[in-house]
């Protein structure tokens, strides 16, 4: 396999260490927290309205309860998103890309190098602000046809993409 012979050089250039487990950068937790908090705002407002209407008592008490709920819902969602990101570990070795993630349901996914069909790198506005990128590895499979992992450093994602891009002359042996 020529790929395994060349990739350590390439990955060394990008500062990737093969065969070791890496966490996501700290910025990924911040970005996920921010997105989680923002998405939590809508249910937060709805729940705050409901709670404020439901609690008996003086208007200031209702306001306090409403504000508390409005604060708590996005905060807990942001916290959840942060914890989720902190749990992610990934590893690239001669076989392929491993990603380990999940809080209650834990998943360890392996996409072999030879099965990569094509790759996407996505950068949303928040990710661009934090210098992050989402890597999507597509295979020809059905249930796991795409491995999507957000929160890579931009350079890391690009390096991973360049390593995982299938060789031109490799025949589609799996299909």
């Amino acid at each position: 396999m020529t790929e395994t012979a060349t990739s350590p050089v390439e990955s060394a250039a990008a500062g990737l260490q093969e065969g070791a487990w890496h966490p996501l950068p700290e910025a990924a937790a911040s970005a996920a927290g921010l997105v989680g908090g923002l998405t939590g705002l809508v249910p937060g407002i709805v729940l705050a309205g409901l709670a404020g209407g439901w609690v008996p008592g003086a208007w200031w008490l209702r306001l306090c309860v409403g504000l508390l709920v409005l604060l708590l819902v996005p905060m807990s969602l942001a916290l959840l998103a942060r914890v989720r990101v902190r749990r992610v570990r990934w590893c690239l070795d001669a076989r392929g890309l491993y990603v380990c993630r999940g809080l209650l349901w834990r998943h360890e996914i392996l996409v072999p190098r030879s099965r990569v069909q094509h790759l996407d790198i996505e950068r949303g506005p928040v990710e661009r602000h934090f210098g992050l990128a989402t890597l999507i590895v597509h295979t020809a499979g059905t249930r796991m046809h795409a491995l999507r992992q957000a929160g890579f450093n931009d350079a890391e994602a690009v390096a991973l993409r360049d390593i995982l891009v299938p060789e031109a002359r490799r025949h589609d042996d799996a299909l």
Partner: protein
Amino acid sequence: MTTPSDPKPTPSEAAAAMAVAGERRLHPLSWLFVAIQQLKQFALPLLVLLVTGRGNTWELWGMVGAGGLVLYSLLLYFTYRFRIEDDAIVIRSGVLQRTVRNIPFSRIHNVALHQTLLHRIAGVAEVRLESAGGAKPEAEMRVLSLADAQALEELVRGQHGEAEAGADPQAGPPPSRVLLQLPTSEVLRLGLISNRGMIVLAAMFGVLAQTGEGFGEMIEGSARLVAGWVKQQHLDSASTLIGALVLFLAAIILMRVLSVVLALLQFHGFTLSESGRRLSAERGLLTRMRASLRRDRIQAWSLRETLLHRWFGRQSLRVDSANLAQVHDDRALRDLAPVATPDTVDGLIRHLLPGASWPLQQWHRLHPRAWRRQFTLPAVVTVLLAAGLGWKEGLPGLCLLLLLPLWLLRARVWARHAGYAFESGVIAVREGWLDKRWRFAEVRKLQAVKLSRSPLDRWHGMATLWLDTAGANAMEMPLRIRYLPLDEAIALRDRLAPELEAPVIPARTPA
């Protein structure tokens, strides 16, 4: 850049030019076609707006909508860029969520050009790059000038030509050989085993129920008629019971007759034959259907043995093919052996999977407590239901608890049968108690591996190993091994991983 007004270059020149040029955009008119495409999707809401519109405001809203569409299409046009590299095409798109997509030429199986009348007038074409297994095309370029589209097609073909020229040297069709032929008696058995009649009846009921209230009245009327007749006959409860049983039996027999008729229609004269690397099957009484499949395109296998199969001493064998478009097409070759004796099925598998020594010998059991996982859920549901019923109806409600021993038996039988095997490059899973299923695939056909642990799995020290193949049907049993002891699951995953990365195995069978 090639514009439609240029004198038409030959595709190969254009391909060469395309490869050198840097980042490119779509055809300048592409925003128009995107807008038209979007308009088609929004046609219904717009129409509703038009019809229900009050006063003059709808015109305004229509204008806003159209303006928005054009703006959106223009944005798409200005943000969509593609670049041809040595061995891949790189596409950048997206306004806020920006995507860079790398598609290696070697992974593109098909370049589809699509031209409507409007496209032809403008001298452009819609290009779709399709790769294996994907449910939707890898890239949709709406639209490229015709010259560019053909150049792209040429470029991809050129990359492929070298690889495929050597792979397909068949000059004439090799002699074909019959692998399996179903005589009418077997097709009758297939009808008796399968439940096609039920499906048709359900579909018929569905259609009739759609037709309106007449159907409901008809049902109600006939039910009343029967009830009245029963009352007239002054039957005692025993005869009523017997009558009901007879009716029930008659319904079952009718259903089976329907199934047999359907099986005859669909599978009469089923012949599976092999010619070179190609398998083909012919079947049907009135409409003859012929489907074929390259045998190296088989991705995964499903073997099934229901209770009825067992009574008749038969099994059925199906396969998945890589072509996802065929998954939902019933003309595709999926049934290798609609019904056959276990020996025939084993022989067929041995013939088509020569590397594997089917039937596999080393079956491993699951976690010793796997039966508990199968027992718990139905047991908990039953107990809850019984508690609810007992609270409402008193003691008779508790009769539901009699189901518990049945669930226990089911779980024990399930666990005794369930297992997995990994030998000679084939990974296989079996499950079921009355309805036994085997699912297996060559390891070199696996696409990805996932080790999952739910909270319950972690509580029991178990893990689930998911194995993904191309072209798998979502309705069928997935290729996954549940309730594995954790260390065994990890060990199995680590044994599978190097074989997944193994280089191409030369064809082990003479073509």
